[in-house]
C-alpha cells in the first residue's frame, strides 16, 4: 500500500487538522507516514492545503504532483487539484460549498454535504471531519477505529468536542462506504 493524499480548503476549515489525524492514525496502524503543509503566506479565508503520504515502505518524496486521493472543501481547491488526481483515485467533494460536480469520469467521486451533516452532528465547524470520514469510508485506507482514537487524543484538552466530531466523522464514513469502489470495501 502506498497512497498520496491532498487535502485542501479555505484557511480555518481544518484541512491541516484532518490531515494530521489521518497521518497520526496511519502511524498508530504501523504505517510509514508524512504530513506536509503548504506554508506560504496563509491566512484565515485564504486557500490552504496539506499532503499526507501513507505507505507500507519508507517514504521518499513527501510531495506529490499526482495524488491517489483528494479531499476538497471549497471550489478553488477543486479547480486547482481536480486534474492532478491519478485515474482510479478517490475525490471527496464538499457539496455544501462547491456548486459544481467534478468533470472527471475516471475517479470515484464522493459528493458530501459536509457543512449540513456537520450541523446535524452538532456544529458546522466539524465539516472537515465529515469529509475525512467520507474519504475513509470510500478508501478504507486506515481503520475507522484508529482514526477515532486519534481524534480522542487530539481533542484530549477539550473533551466536550469529542462526541460531536466523532458523530461528524461517522456520518461522513457512512456516505463514503456507499460510494466505495467494490475492491475497497471490507
Amino acid at each position, binding site marked *: 500500500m502506498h497512497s498520496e493524499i491532498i487535502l485542501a480548503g479555505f484557511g480555518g476549515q481544518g484541512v491541516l487538522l484532518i490531515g494530521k489525524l489521518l497521518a497520526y492514525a496511519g502511524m498508530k496502524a504501523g504505517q510509514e507516514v508524512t504530513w*506536509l503543509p503548504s506554508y506560504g503566506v496563509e491566512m484565515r479565508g485564504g486557500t490552504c492545503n496539506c499532503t499526507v503520504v501513507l505507505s507500507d515502505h519508507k517514504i521518499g518524496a513527501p510531495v506529490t504532483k499526482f495524488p491517489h486521493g483528494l479531499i476538497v472543501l471549497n471550489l478553488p481547491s477543486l479547480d486547482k487539484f481536480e486534474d492532478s488526481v491519478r485515474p482510479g483515485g478517490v475525490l471527496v467533494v464538499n457539496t455544501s460549498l462547491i456548486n459544481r460536480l467534478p468533470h472527471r469520469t475516471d475517479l470515484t467521486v464522493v459528493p458530501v454535504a459536509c457543512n449540513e451533516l456537520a450541523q446535524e452532528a452538532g456544529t458546522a465547524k466539524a465539516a472537515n471531519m465529515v469529509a475525512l470520514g467520507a474519504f475513509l469510508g470510500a478508501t478504507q485506507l486506515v481503520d475507522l477505529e484508529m482514526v477515532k482514537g486519534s481524534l480522542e487524543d487530539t481533542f484530549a484538552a477539550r473533551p466536550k468536542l469529542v462526541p460531536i466530531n466523532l458523530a461528524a466523522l461517522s456520518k461522513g464514513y457512512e456516505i463514503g462506504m456507499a460510494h466505495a469502489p467494490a475492491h475497497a470495501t471490507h
Partner: protein
Amino acid sequence: MAKKLMKGCEAIGEAAIKAGCRLFFGYPITPQNEIPEYMSARLPQVGGTFVQAESEVAASNMIYGAAGAGCRVMTSSSSPGISLMSEGISYIAGSELPVVIVNIMRGGPGLGGILPSQSDYFQATKGGGHGDYRLLVLAPASVQEAADLMALAFDRADHYRNPVMILGDGLIGQMMEPVEFKSEIGPEDLPPKPWSTTGCKGRAPNIINSLYLAAEDLEAHNWALHRKYEEMEKHEKRYETYNTEGGCDVLIVAYGTVARIVRTAIDEMKDSGIKAGLFRPITLWPYPSEALWATAENAGKVLTCELSCGQMVEDVRYAIMGRRPVEFYGRVGGSIPAPEEIIEQVQKLAATAV
C-alpha cells in the same frame, strides 16, 4: 519509547533538550519559528532558560557567552537571520567554543521568500563569517534524522570545541513524521569543561578570546584550527547511498528533502531500462569526496539536484575531477521538483552522448 508524530522543528527542539541543552537564544523568523516556540514552552519545564534576543546579532553573542561559560547551548534561525549571526559564529569558531546552530533555509538573496530552499550551501560550508574557519555541517533528510543529528551535533561540538550547523530546508522544518528519541541525557551527565570561564577562585583564570595581535601568535592559532579541521575531515564524513550496488547509468547527488524526491524517482525508474542511483551526503562539510568518487567511478554520468542555482555541484565537480560528466538540475524560489521532473532529467542525460 513509542514513536511520536512531530514537526521537524519540534523534533529538533526536543532532541536538543534530550541531548542536555538547557539554553536557547534566538530571534523569530519563518520557517523555523516552531523551534523557538517549542523551546520557550519546554525549557522552563526542565529548568532551562529561553531568551528571545533583541536581534540575531545579539542572539549569536548570547550563545557565544553561554558556551564560554561551559553550557550546552543552541540557536536557530533561517537564512537572513543566519547572515546576521555570522559575525558571532566567526568569533565562536575563533574562540573554539561548542555551539549548535540550526538553519532552516528559505529562499534568498536578501529577504527572498519563506518557502524551502538550499541556497545557503555556500554560506554554511565555505564561510559565512570572516576568517579561516569551518563548521561541521549536517544535513538531515527526515524528521528522525534531524533528531538524531541534533544529538550528534552537540556531541561533536563539545568534542572539537567547534560550532556545528544543522542545515535543513524549509520542508524538513515544516513536515511531520514519526520520530523516536533514542537517548536522553541531562547537563549533569556531561563531562566537565575545564577550559570554561566559571569563576577562577582557587585556579588560574581561563581566557576565551579570538584576538591575537602578534603575527606569530595568530599564525600558530590559525594552524592549530586547521589541524582540528583536518581531524574533522578524517573522522566526520558521513553519507548514504541507494541503488548504487553494481554501478548505475546515472548517479544522482542530492541532500536533504531533494534526496528523498530523488529516491522516489529512482524507484519509479526501476523498469525503465535506465538504472539510477543516489549518493546523499549527510555531512556537507567535511564533504565525503572520496566516497562520492568511489561511487561515481561505477556510474556512467553524474547529475546533481539542488534547491539552488548550483552550489553543492561545485563540490561534486571537485570530487569527480572531470573523470565523469557532471550535470546540474535545480529548482529555486520555493519550487520543489516532482519525481517526474527528476526522471525527465535523468532520461535526457542518459540519452546524451559523452
